[in-house]
């Protein structure tokens, strides 16, 4: 049977999204793409992401935000000012018909709007409510305000990126929010699995700071098992640590930079052979990981020499195909859009928008053999208000 004709697995589910920015909307986007009917409630000025760039097309306006368009694909937009108290009861009516409520009401917002934590779930035992906030609804930071750099700082990510001794650097864009959106989608799916079996809904809290804390690469174990502080180390990863090896590094080549991810003993051996230094394999100076680390500057210079004569593509093909070494070019944004592997996967989809016309958006990092996700344009502000609330 043609899989595009099969109903998507979340068809028939109604999702109300009262969340702005990236985390909640990114979660809602995934639910919508797999069949759910997602109704997005926006304040009169629109989701705040409508006001920040980058923008699409030539004009900066509330319909041209790239963050908004990407994360709100296929939703219905309803404008409802929740600071007007009667609108809370309109929202209650809308939520009463919903299966899932995604919201981002932190403690200050809940106080401002008078929305207590169990307002919706106490009267509807089958409702799944997903709360996505920076710090959660309890604890000493629960009244804190934040932006991505603050999340990265408190979540232990910021400290790890950048050169030793220099200012720690943030990850690009809105990474804590995207990670929380993905985690929120996991939370919805887990709760749906349970509801499909028992009929019971639930209130599930997902905090950005805790999301980040669970997504560390053995960072905490370096302290709890080995007793040292994990540092940022530029492109050289964590050379001081027992976890590290020589060869996780980024090096300049003829047309940019390439990244190496040499992490096992046999990869180290093949790296030596590749750069014509097979004699290192018998040399005690390179016998152990820590010995290699102490020779890192010299090893870097040898690798630089080998890499320097080649282009990024030459390095990747030669190192990967002949030597079986994990390498990749460091790509710029426009290069990612044209990368052969990503094109082969159909990673980007052209979507047309009435104001900003065509643009390419990432679809999903996964391909599925039995489902065709439904991604369409994001709504204009309030485009569906009258359809949904009858105004």
């Amino acid at each position, binding site marked *: 049977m043609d899989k595009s004709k099969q109903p998507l697995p979340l068809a028939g589910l109604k999702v109300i999204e009262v969340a702005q920015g990236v985390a909640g909307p990114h979660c809602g986007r995934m639910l919508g793409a797999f069949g759910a009917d997602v109704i997005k409630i926006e304040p009169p000025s629109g989701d705040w992401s409508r006001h920040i760039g980058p923008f699409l097309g030539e004009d900066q306006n509330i319909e041209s935000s790239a963050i908004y368009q990407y994360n709100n694909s296929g939703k219905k937009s309803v404008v409802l000012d929740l600071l007007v108290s009667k609108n809370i009861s309109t929202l209650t009516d809308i939520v009463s018909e919903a299966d899932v409520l995604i919201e981002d009401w932190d403690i200050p917002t809940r106080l401002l709007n008078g929305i207590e934590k169990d307002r919706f779930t106490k009267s509807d035992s089958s409702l799944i409510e997903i709360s996505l906030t920076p710090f959660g609804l309890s604890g000493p930071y629960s009244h804190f305000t934040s932006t991505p750099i603050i999340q990265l700082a408190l979540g232990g990510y910021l400290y790890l990126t950048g050169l030793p001794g220099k200012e720690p650097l943030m990850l690009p864009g809105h990474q804590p929010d995207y990670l929380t959106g993905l985690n929120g989608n996991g939370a919805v799916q887990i709760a749906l699995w349970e509801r499909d079996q028992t009929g019971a809904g639930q209130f599930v809290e997902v905090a950005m700071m805790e999301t980040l804390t669970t997504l560390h690469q053995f960072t905490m174990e370096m302290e709890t098992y080995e007793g040292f502080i994990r540092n940022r180390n530029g492109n050289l990863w964590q050379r001081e640590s027992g976890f590290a090896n020589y060869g996780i590094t*980024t090096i300049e080549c003829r047309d940019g930079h390439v990244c190496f991810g040499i992490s096992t003993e046999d990869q180290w051996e093949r790296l030596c052979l590749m750069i014509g230094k097979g004699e290192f394999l018998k040399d005690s100076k390179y016998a152990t990981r820590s010995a290699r680390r102490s020779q890192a500057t010299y090893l870097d210079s040898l690798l630089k020499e080998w890499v320097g004569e080649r282009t990024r593509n030459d390095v990747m093909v030669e190192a990967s195909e002949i030597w079986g070494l994990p390498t990749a070019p460091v790509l710029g944004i426009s290069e990612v859009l044209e990368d052969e592997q990503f094109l082969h996967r159909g990673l980007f989809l052209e979507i047309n928008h009435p104001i900003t016309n065509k643009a390419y958006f990432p679809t999903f990092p996964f391909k599925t053999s039995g489902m065709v996700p439904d991604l369409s344009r994001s709504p204009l502000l309030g485009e569906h208000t009258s359809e949904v609330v009858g105004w």
Partner: protein
Amino acid sequence: MVSTKTINTLGSLTGLRVLDLTRVWAGPLATRIYGDFGAEIIKISDPRVPLVSPNGLNSKLNRNKKNIGLRLDKPEGRNIFLELTAISDVIIENFRPRVMRNLNVTYETLAKINPHIIMCSMPGFGLEGPYSEYPAFGTTAEALAGIPGLIGYDSSLPISTGMAYGDPVSGLNAVGIILTALRHRNITGTGQLIDIALAASPVCNLGEFFAANSSNGFKPAINGNKSEYYSPHGAYRTKGEDRWIAISITGERSWKTFTSLVDDPILNSLDYCVLENRKKDEILIDSRISEWVAVQKAEEVMFQLQNNGIAAGVVSNNRQLLSDPHLNEREFFVDLEEPLFGLKQYDGQSIRGNFTNKSRWKTTEDVGESSKEVLMELLGYTINDCETLEKTGIVLFKNNA
């Protein structure tokens, strides 16, 4: 209204059985989340490679899983895997594509044995395409996705995240899409194959960059922590060794409050209430802020600014994160007794739903600790069968009594 519907006392995913062939980070992260929520995770390990190590590398991600040591490359071992396939809901693996082909356990083969199975493969670049057979690592995956190209003090040197960012993003994607496919199976009766590319995962966390670039050629400036929309914006060195505070001024009101707290004659200039003017003099403004925070403790600055509604946060390292007052008051961490290493503190479950009670969480099993239970209770093997399999080295049995 009194609810008549109740949730599962043993966790949301009670009854879900997952065969876990994953290694390192992305895959084990996904199955750890399922395990925390009560799914039965059967982790299949190579009997020749120990899982539990003195650096805790694997212990963080393999709690709440049963482990069996099984030689998939031997016909008898492969048969056991096929028998497990027949009674499971999900298979998840993150080898290079040719490994599963060489073992003759691709989706096509497994779906014949169990058409309801959801199989999730998580190779570096995907199961097909020009790079599909290339080896990958979290750091190289993020490079291809454009991440280090967007990090740097300036545009001359791209900088990696320092933490193999492709992995956690892929792991979280797996958690959601496998359950979506299970719902699809429950409705249609058929399983399917999911192919997640490690390198494609960070791309989908940068959607706005690609959309804007494709629309109008947008290219962000590479300029440390500077932001086009917020200023000041960055990390500033405070008192203490390598201690920093991140500060993010999001608008005019937050700037005015900030300057009233700092009370610096230069920052008090009315011109700076306008974002463009602050951006113009960003270096000067940053140097005044650096001077102000240099003599203070990061935590004190954070609470002072946050209590006045300004976005600020200490730049925590691993040690500070483990003792963070907020996470500890929320009882986020969990202490697990490791047979070889004593009590160890781990990150808990960030999805605060119906996960199994932390008091019942099990530490990471070493290879083969559940071999006997899985073979005898799930597959009906006898003790004699087990002894034969042990003698021939097909299955490793480790006594965990």
